[in-house]
């Protein structure tokens, strides 16, 4: 008898991902879909797509989805969740979307303790617009707008969102993970699960920051970008739990 051990989650449409080879977005989409399936919440989950490479998330997630203006998903999520508190609402946002143009919205949604789950995809550049500097770009990193590398005196420093949000009283769960190895993928999945679980249990705002490879923006092979996450990126953006308000209670 055949036993299926790996299949498409119901929360993903039968639509091949059109992300670049080696891109972290497709891995993260899959993990989120698996978690939605495992909680059995597909019929009551609403996702918010960012403006960025993942704008097409609405083509992939087999659930109710909405796209909105660049950086505003936390405000849109607030509008949806406050009117439909019984639904599960998540935003999926890149580092341009969340950490640059949408900084005000994420900080205030966090500070209000909105009962939502935010998946923050840090790939240290603007993938969609052709690899420009992001607030998360590392010092000395080449991008199409930092041709001699990011210089602090000109461009400032990489912005650490997980650390920043963990200082906000309204947040419940803040963690940074990665998707460059089997182990990290499993940790990310557990983090996503927890973010959803906290929302289901009305425990408030969660943010999972995920270091995500962007081989095209980084001008690296997919293989080298997996290594770069370990050897370079996670030195500046250390993985780990930054806040867990209900750790004791668990």
């Amino acid at each position: 008898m055949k036993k299926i051990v790996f299949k498409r989650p119901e929360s993903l449409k039968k639509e091949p991902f059109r992300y670049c080879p080696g891109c972290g977005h497709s891995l993260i989409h899959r993990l989120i879909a698996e978690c939605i399936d495992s909680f059995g919440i597909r019929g009551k989950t609403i996702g918010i797509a960012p403006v960025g490479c993942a704008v097409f998330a609405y083509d992939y997630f087999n659930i109710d989805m909405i796209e909105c203006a660049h950086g505003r998903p936390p405000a849109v999520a607030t509008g949806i969740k406050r009117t439909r508190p019984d639904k599960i609402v998540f935003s999926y946002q890149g580092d341009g979307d969340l950490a640059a143009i949408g900084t005000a919205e994420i900080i205030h949604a966090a500070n209000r303790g909105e009962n939502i789950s935010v998946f923050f995809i840090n790939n240290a550049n603007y993938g969609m617009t052709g690899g420009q500097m992001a607030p998360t770009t590392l010092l000395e990193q080449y991008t199409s707008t930092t041709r001699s590398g990011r210089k602090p005196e000109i461009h400032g420093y990489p912005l650490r969102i997980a650390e920043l949000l963990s200082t906000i009283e309204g947040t419940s769960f803040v963690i940074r993970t990665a998707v460059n190895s089997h182990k990290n993928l499993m940790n990310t999945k557990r983090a996503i699960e927890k973010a959803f679980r906290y929302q289901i249990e009305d425990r408030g705002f969660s943010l999972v920051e995920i270091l995500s490879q962007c081989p095209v923006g980084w001008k690296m092979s997919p293989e080298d970008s997996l290594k770069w996450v370990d050897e370079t990126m996670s030195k500046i953006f250390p993985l780990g739990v930054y806040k867990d308000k209900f750790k004791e209670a668990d």
Partner: protein
Amino acid sequence: MKTRILMKGNEAIAEAAVRAGCRFYAGYPITPQNEIPEYLSWRMLEVGGVFIQAESELAAINMVYGASAAGIRAMTSSSSPGISLKQEAISFLAGAELPCVIVNMQRGGPGLGNISASQADYFQAVKGGGHGDYKIIVYAPYSVQELWDLTILAFDKADEYRTPVMILGDAIIGQMMEPFYPTDYKKPELPDKDWIIDGCEGRLPHVIKTLYMGDGELEMMNNKLQKKYKNIKNKEVISEGHFIDDAELIVVAFGIAARIALSSVIKLRRKGIKVGLFRPVTLFPFPENELFLISDENKRFLVVEMNAGQMLEDVKLAINGRSEVLFYGRTGGMVVSPEEIDKKILSLIDLKCNVKM
């Protein structure tokens, strides 16, 4: 017997919204519209609705975007600089065909300007202040009664056409108190909201979006929107005429300028001067035909606005050269006075007949 009540304009809007079934409001404080969020901050709680004081006008209107997508009647309000910040989202709301009501209690501009009454956001409201080929319905109330009635109508029209609708008021209308009839709300028959995102249990997933990358897809979407706007133009024009038939000079004004001009016109009529008033209540759709039909070479039109001449352009387009169109306006939060309008009208009428006051 119906009783009249006394209320401030801004509060009348807020209460009318609640009566019309609005259950979500988000806004950011700005004078001269603060009574709206202040009133709704407690009133929404009473009716089990949601009130959020957002971190900015950007956030406020995007919260409305979410609430509307989730199927609830939603509103935001602001004044000129705040409305400028909302423009990107208004374009998104139009593109995503999400209904909502946006109130602009205009103040003087440009920039921070001042907090007096102004009508300088006409172009922004009517010509599409955001990007892309879109229109929104714009109502220009001139009394507290109309603030009440048009706010209620705005929610119905927003749902009927799946479009943002704007109430374009100003500092005077929002701040003034006058008695009015708080008519009861009767919900008309409206199409089912079968497009909302509230979880796909028992149906296929819904997607609300504004991005159309496929060849020709966006043009198709635009054609659909243009068809809707044409439909709105055919069905939703509201305007009002006073003493038009034998008038030699017709004042054209909207909102508070029309209220002031009407007192001038009534006074001059008593003196036998053949002057009338035409007042667009909808600024989009603009009453083009109505204006064209009352124009001819023996009539002259005087557009009176509290700006440097914005609706003036639409009046000229509508009249299309059939009559002479003149303009009188004040800017920077200066309110036109009835005396100024009298004087202007008399200076124009004097050329033809010799009336003494």
